[in-house]
C-alpha cells in the first residue's frame, strides 16, 4: 500500500536554506532523549523536527534532527551534541546526497461529492486515502519535507481537521554513512 515517490524527490547536493539535517547515533540508554532535547533547549538551538528510531544494533538508537541553523552555526550544534557522553557519532548531511522521507497523515472533512476530486489530488502526490468514515477522510503522503509541505497546502481548502507529521528521516546514499 505504501507508495514511494520518484527519484526527483531526492535531495541532491547542497541544501540552500537554513535547515540542516544531523544524524546522531546514541546509546540506547534511559534519558538519552532528555539529554539531547535539554541540550537544544538550554543552548537555545532550534530544532524543526526530531525522529528517534531503533537501528540495526539494539544498543544504539538513531536520532534524525532537522536543525534551523539561522541562530547558531551548525558546527557548534554538532560539537555540543558530540560532547554528550551518550552520543556516539553525529553526522552533518549538509554536503551529502541523502534520501529523505517524511510521512504525513491529514484528516480532512470531505463531502461525499468531493471524494473523487480528493482521490485525484492524492494520486498526484502518489499518496493514499487510508481511512474513510463519519464525514472525514484520512489521507497519507510520504516524501521529502518539501513535498509534504505542498501536500498539506493542497488540502487547506478542504478544511484540515487534524494532521500529523513524523519528522524527517534520512539515509545517506551509497558508501557515505548516515
Amino acid at each position, binding site marked *: 500500500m505504501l507508495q514511494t515517490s520518484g527519484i526527483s524527490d531526492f535531495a541532491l547536493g547542497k541544501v540552500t536554506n537554513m535547515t540542516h539535517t544531523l544524524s546522531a547515533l546514541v546509546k540506547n540508554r534511559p*534519558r538519552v532523549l532528555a539529554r539531547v532535547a*535539554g541540550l537544544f533547549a*538550554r543552548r537555545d538551538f532550534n530544532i524543526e523536527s526530531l525522529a528517534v528510531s531503533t537501528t540495526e544494533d539494539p544498543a544504539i538508537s538513531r536520532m534524525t534532527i532537522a536543525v534551523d541553523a539561522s541562530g547558531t552555526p551548525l*558546527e557548534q550544534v554538532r*560539537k555540543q551534541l558530540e560532547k554528550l*557522553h551518550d552520543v556516539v557519532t553525529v553526522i552533518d548531511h549538509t554536503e551529502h546526497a541523502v534520501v529523505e522521507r517524511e510521512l504525513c497523515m491529514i484528516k480532512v472533512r470531505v463531502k461525499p461529492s468531493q471524494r473523487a476530486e480528493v482521490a485525484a489530488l492524492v494520486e498526484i502526490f502518489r499518496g493514499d486515502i487510508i481511512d474513510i468514515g463519519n464525514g472525514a477522510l484520512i489521507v497519507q503522503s510520504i516524501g521529502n519535507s518539501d513535498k509534504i509541505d505542498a501536500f498539506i497546502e493542497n488540502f487547506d481548502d478542504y478544511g484540515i481537521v487534524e494532521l500529523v507529521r513524523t519528522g524527517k528521516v534520512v539515509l545517506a546514499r551509497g558508501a557515505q554513512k548516515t
Partner: protein
Amino acid sequence: MSEKMINGAVGMLQVLEEEDVDIIFGYPGGAVIPIYDALYDSKIRNILPRHEQGAAHAADGYARSTGRVGVCLATSGPGALNLVTGLANAYMDSVPMVAITGQVKRHLIGKDSFQEADTTGVTIPVTKHNYLVTNTAELVDICREAFYLARTGRPGPVLVDVPFDVSIGDVPWTERNIEGLDGYEQPKPVDDELIRRAAQMIDEAKKPVLLIGGGVVASGASEKLLEFATKCNIGVIHTLMGKGAFPESHELSMGMPGMHGMAYASLALQNSDLMIVIGARFDDRITGDLEKFAPGARVIHIDVDAAEIEKVRPVRIGICADAGDALDKLIPACKPRDKGPWEQQLFEWRRTHPLTYPTPDEGIAPQYIVEQLYELTGGSAIIATEVGQNQMWAAQYYKLEKPRRFLSSGGLGTMGYGFPAAIGAQVGNPGELVVDIAGDGSIQMNQQELTTASINKLPVKVVILNNGYLGLVRQWQEMFFDNRLSGVDLTGNPDFAKMAEAHGGVGLRCAEPDKVRETLEQGLEVNDRPVFMDFLVHKEENVFPFIPAGKSVDDIMMEQPEKQK
C-alpha cells in the same frame, strides 16, 4: 563463569580506593546509610559538613587546589538537591568532581516516594555526565567511569545516583578496564600542520598577546607556558580562572582583563593583532560587546573542548588539544622572538594604568587589607574568594606565582563558595596557609561550615571585607540606577568575631587602618582552628577599573566619577 560478588556500597568504596581517594565530603541520610555503614570499616575519611552545599564546594576546593578528583556524597531528595549549586559551580569552572547520591529503592522510583527527587533529571544540565544505577551489574564500572570522565578531557563533575537496594545488595565485582569508552572522544594528537601555520602566524604578528585561562591550570601546563612566553617574548594576560598559571611578578605578566580587570590588560587585548588563546572561553565578563572586542586581532584558539572553538569568537586557527600537548609542539615550532615596540607599549600601559585606590575618610580601604595580606604572606597563600567586590579586590591585589592557588567561583559567581572551598583546600593541603577573602554577605551563605572547620582543626583564615552592603550590587545601583539602593543594606549583620568564637574558632575585629597589619598577623598565627577577621571597611568603596556590562574598553572607568551634587 562465577563472578565474585561484593556488597554494593563496599564495591563503590573499593573503586574510590582504586582512585586513591582518601577523603570524601559527605552528609548521611536514609538512602545512603549502606554507604555510611561501609565507611565504618573503610580507610576513607568522611568529613561531615553542616550542609550539603558545603560538601560540594569543599570537594570542589579540594579538587582545584590539589588537581585530584574531589568527592562528595549526599542522601536522596533534599540531600542531593542541596548539591546542585555546587555541581553547577564545578561544571562552569571545569572542576573534576564525583558526586555520589543515594536514591530510593528501584521499585519505588517514580512513585513520589519519601525523599525521592529526580536527581539525574535535575542535574543533567549541571554535570558533565550522570548515571542512575538501575542494573547492579553496572555499579562498579559506572563508578570507575565516573572518575574517568571527571578527570579526563575537559574535567567536570559527574554524578552517580545509587538506589538504596543497589548499595545494600550484592553486585558483581569486575576488573578495572575503562579506557576507550564508546562515544567519549579524547582529543586527537595535535595536528602538525596546524602548529606549523600557528607558528608562522605568531612569527608574522606585530602585536601578539597570550590570553590564558583555567585550561592551562587544569592541564598543568604552567611551566610550558612560561617557556613559550619567554621564548617568544609575548605578554601574558590571564582570565580569573587562569590566575596563577603564569607568575604575576614576571615581566611578561600583563594582568587580568575585562569588567574589573586591569586597564592595561584590556588595552593589550584590545589593540593586539594576534590573540593566542589557551584554555579560555571568551566569557562575556572579558569580551564585553563582542562587536567591539579586539576587532583587529586574529585568533589562535587552543582548547581541549572542541565546542569552545568558535562558540563565541571566530578563529583563524583552532586547535583542539590539551594545553600542555599543544605547547609541547608549539614551543619548538616557533622562532625565538625579541621584545619590540609592541612589548614596550604593553609595559608603558602597565606603567601608566596601575591599579590605584583612594584613601577613604572613613573606614579601612579594602584594597589595602588585601595588599597587606599579600605582603605578609609573600604571595604564598592559597586564596579562596567569595563573590562580589571582595572577589575582584582579591584578584586584583593578591598576586600569585603558582597555579591551583586561586579558588574562585568564576563562571557561576556563587556567593558562599569560598569558605567551604577553603575548607576543602585546607583538607587537601594540610601544611599550607589557606585564606578566604570574603564579603559580609557571602560569608553568611555557608557560615555553618565554621563548625566543620573547628571540629576538624582546620586553620582556615577568613578575611571579611565588611562593608555592611551587598557591595557589588550596591555599586551597580549607585552607578546605573541613580543610587536607589534597594535590597542591599546588610544592617544587622551578626558580630562575625563572636560568631567564630561561638563555633570554636578565633574571632578578631579591626576598625582602624593602622591595626590592619597587626590583626592579620594575629590571625595568620593561629594553626589549629578557623579564624574570622572582621575588617570594617569603607562602606561605599567601589571596584575600579570598571567596564560596564556589554560595553568595551573605550568605556572604561578608571576611578570614581565626580559625584553630581
